[in-house]
């Protein structure tokens, strides 16, 4: 459902990240198909999948994955620039202001705290207005208080943009905030809960 928040939970090695990789078309399945917005991902070639990702997907990673050579603003501008969007600087500024980093536009990742880095990553993920946001353990590298702040922000942005959220986590509390929770055990769906 558009705008829905879904959590994928499971122990380490249960296949959560593999599933996320498949859903994003970053990894190829040995069998089966993945449909994204009605398109069969693996009917496309690598560049076709990339184009689809560029149009539909946003990413947030456990290790933030900001480019160390770019400052906060440039990191957020990057997906727009790659798509050839001339509005990149304006949109990126707005988005960074929205995540509370208007004062730190020109800071490099190494001079930002973990929480700040992940907020830059959130801004980068949402700046393209993706239909689907894939988040891989977004608080895995953060302490509890900082992590909670980031999660709050992520749900707010999710609601504002009407983005569908797919969240991989092993944190039951975070999973509890999602409308739907899917549990993975040894690579298989072991149950689904709602509410």
């Amino acid at each position, binding site marked *: 459902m558009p705008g829905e928040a879904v959590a994928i939970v499971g122990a380490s090695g249960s296949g959560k990240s593999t599933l996320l990789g498949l859903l994003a078309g970053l990894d190829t399945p040995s069998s089966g198909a993945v449909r994204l917005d009605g398109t069969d991902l693996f009917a496309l070639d690598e560049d076709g999948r990339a184009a689809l*990702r560029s149009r539909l997907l946003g990413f947030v990673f456990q*290790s933030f994955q900001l480019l160390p050579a770019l400052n906060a603003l440039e990191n957020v501008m990057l997906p727009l620039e790659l798509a050839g969007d001339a509005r990149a600087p304006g949109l990126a500024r707005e988005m960074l202001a929205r995540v509370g980093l208007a004062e730190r536009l020109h800071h490099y990742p190494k001079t930002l705290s973990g929480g700040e880095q992940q907020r830059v990553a959130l801004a980068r993920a949402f700046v393209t207005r993706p239909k689907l946001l894939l988040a891989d353990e977004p608080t895995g590298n953060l302490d509890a208080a900082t992590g909670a702040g980031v999660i709050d922000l992520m749900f707010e942005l999710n609601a504002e943009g009407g983005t569908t959220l797919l969240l991989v986590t092993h944190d039951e509390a975070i999973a509890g905030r999602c409308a739907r929770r899917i549990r993975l055990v040894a690579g298989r769906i072991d149950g689904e809960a709602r509410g």
Partner: protein
Amino acid sequence: MARLAFRMLLRDWRAGELRVLALALLLAAGSVSSVAFFADRIRQALTREAHQVLGADVLLSADHPWSAEFREAMARLGLRQAESVSFVSMARAGDEAQLAAVKAVSQGYPLRGKLRTAPGLNAADGDADGVPPGGSVWLDERMMAALKLKGGDAIELGRARLRVAAVLTLEPDRGVSFMNFAPRIMMRVEDLPATGLIQPQSRISYQLLAAGEREAVGRFEQWARARLGRGERIDSLENARPEVRAGLDRAQSFLGLAAMLSVVLSAVAVALGARRYTERHLDGYAVMRCMGAGQSRLFALFAWEFLFLALLASLAGCALGFLVQNVVAWWLASLVPGTLPQPGPAPLLQGAAAGLVLLLGFALPPLLQLKDVPALRVMRRDLGEVHRSAVAVYIAGLAAAFLLLRWQAGELKLAAYVFAGFLGAFVVFAAIAYAALRLAGRLGRAGSVSWRYGLASLMRRPRGNAVQIVAIAVGLTAVLLLTLIRADLLDAWRRRLPPDAPDRFLVNIQPEQRGALAEFFRRNGVAEPQAFPMVRARLVSVNGKPVSAEDFSDERAKRQIEREFNLTYLSALPPDNRVTEGAWFGARDMAGGALSVEHSIAERLGIRVGDRLEFLSAGRGFSAPVTSVRKLDWDSMRPNFFFIATPGLLQDLPASYVASFHAPAGDQRLTLRLSQAFPNLTVIDVGLVLRQVQAVMNQLIGAVQLVFLFALAAGVLVLYAALLATQDERTHEAAVMRALGARRAQVLSAQRAEFAVLGVIAGALGALGASAIGWVLATRIFELDFVWNAWIWLAGPALGLACVVVNAWAGARAALGRPPMAALREVV
């Protein structure tokens, strides 16, 4: 795309990501262009110096006066011109008479180089101001002595009476030619008619001299060559004076070598920089793939960024190269005679091309490897490491490096040797380094914690460290090659022209004079020189087919075929000769008669082993097959012969003898006594010419050394780049160690242990490499005797240690200067 790439370039630059690569490229373009700029200027200056030997840039000679159109062409092209007329005539003064080589010159002569004169015999000489004034002559010392003259006396030449104005002590363009044996009288061309010596049947040589801008000279030469008639010839540096040319060729080989070393060293630096860059950008690449950038788009993005980088860094490098060579030229102004000509624009192109080609060759392969980096790396860091051992990807880089080498060397053979030398060294170095590391690991199990940890970390990444050892060893190879081996090579070169090289030629020795001559030498304390019989003969047919000048297009071939050759007969091969084809005279050749031909004349006249040559000497013909082709050493200053026959073939023909000897220092009147004792004998004093050749050679050696300095600097900078390449890892390790509670001193000594082993292995390898390359260069390229240098085995490891110790100091400061957390965070 290009704009985004340019923005990425600026961002990467600002973040310091490109500094190593940019520095390497700057260095590449800088060293190549500075060497090229400087070599270009030195080459121009050397050419100009060598032109002094001609007295001009181009020298036209004919047995009849030159038509006006040649003078007009010179004037049209803005060339300076002068003329001279040479002939042999008797000169008289009082009761004395002497055969003189007369040279009548016009105002402005010589166009290159300077005459030197002294006011009287044994007076100090100085640069001459112009040419002899009208109505007067300058005589050389031998002429003064022969005619028993002093300054102010007069001589009679033909019908004219001319005053002796000065003693001519140096005439730069006086060659070693056998035609130049008589003592010199120099006069004004305007005084010639008064002598009445210019008659229709006289044997006179008319010369036109031209000098000016290189381009205009080249155009004139081309124009004139197309219009040369019979009995006319053109001499430029290209076809004049084989012994000077041999020196220039060798110097240019050395200059090329210096430039090539810069190319190889820069290639290593660029390869290291490119690897560091791509390794640091693996994550960013994967992230951008997640963001939906296609592979081809990303490849284009990086390719554009690298292209911009290459262009900018190369241009900056060229600017630096230009500045550096200017500073050096200024610094060394007193060593280089005259002012250096300004360099042409070609070195700029060379520098920029060096940067571009190297970056394309060494950075594109790792970039292409980025394509194999899965986007999934963002979630699983173990994926998509660039495979370091993939030799195949560096093939493009190697090809690029070879291309540049070939370009720099200007000849395939030299380029191939240097390239094969470095490539072989890479492979051998890597194998030895790997083995040495394993050995060190085995030996390192005892000792302090730091020592054990240091060696353990060497062993933890033996391949990476082997690569680093190779890089340092290559740098050290270059440094050692440029210092110790270069000095050895230059010494060996210098030794080829020993100070006691023969400096007098004796021509026209009659067979019956040989005993008296030997007695004369004994009395004067000079070792009796070997005398070669000389038979003058004209080549009339090859394999029964008559030869004439018209059969050849080559100007020298035409000239030589019209003249008589000087043949000698010998049963043993002369010491400076080397048979390259066929075999030296055997018993059957001795019985039946055979000929040995010099390599260059054989090539020019198209003579091969097995051809039957027929000669005509004093009306008598003889013929024999060619059984060998020889190469001879033009540096030797001994009588050299194009044709050598078996004694049986020539013994009955009228012959005179020719010999060369070294006149003892301080006995300047030996020559005079010799010509007084043997009036028919021609004594050619090559001492002056020899000193000139030696002076030119000393200059060449100086120039070569200057150019080698640049390559030396490049080598040292490559060492820095090589060590910088593993700095990230070391910084991170130091942080981990300190996080685990290691004291600062422990971290330092662990790194020191690691570096010490690394440096000593690399240094020993460098010594090995430099010795091997030096040996190949000496024996295969420069044909010199190579002397193994023992010092290199001490200097190599010591230098290796010194280099890594300096780096360890700088690197450790970087590693320990910040809190461990900062270092840990940066590398994660």
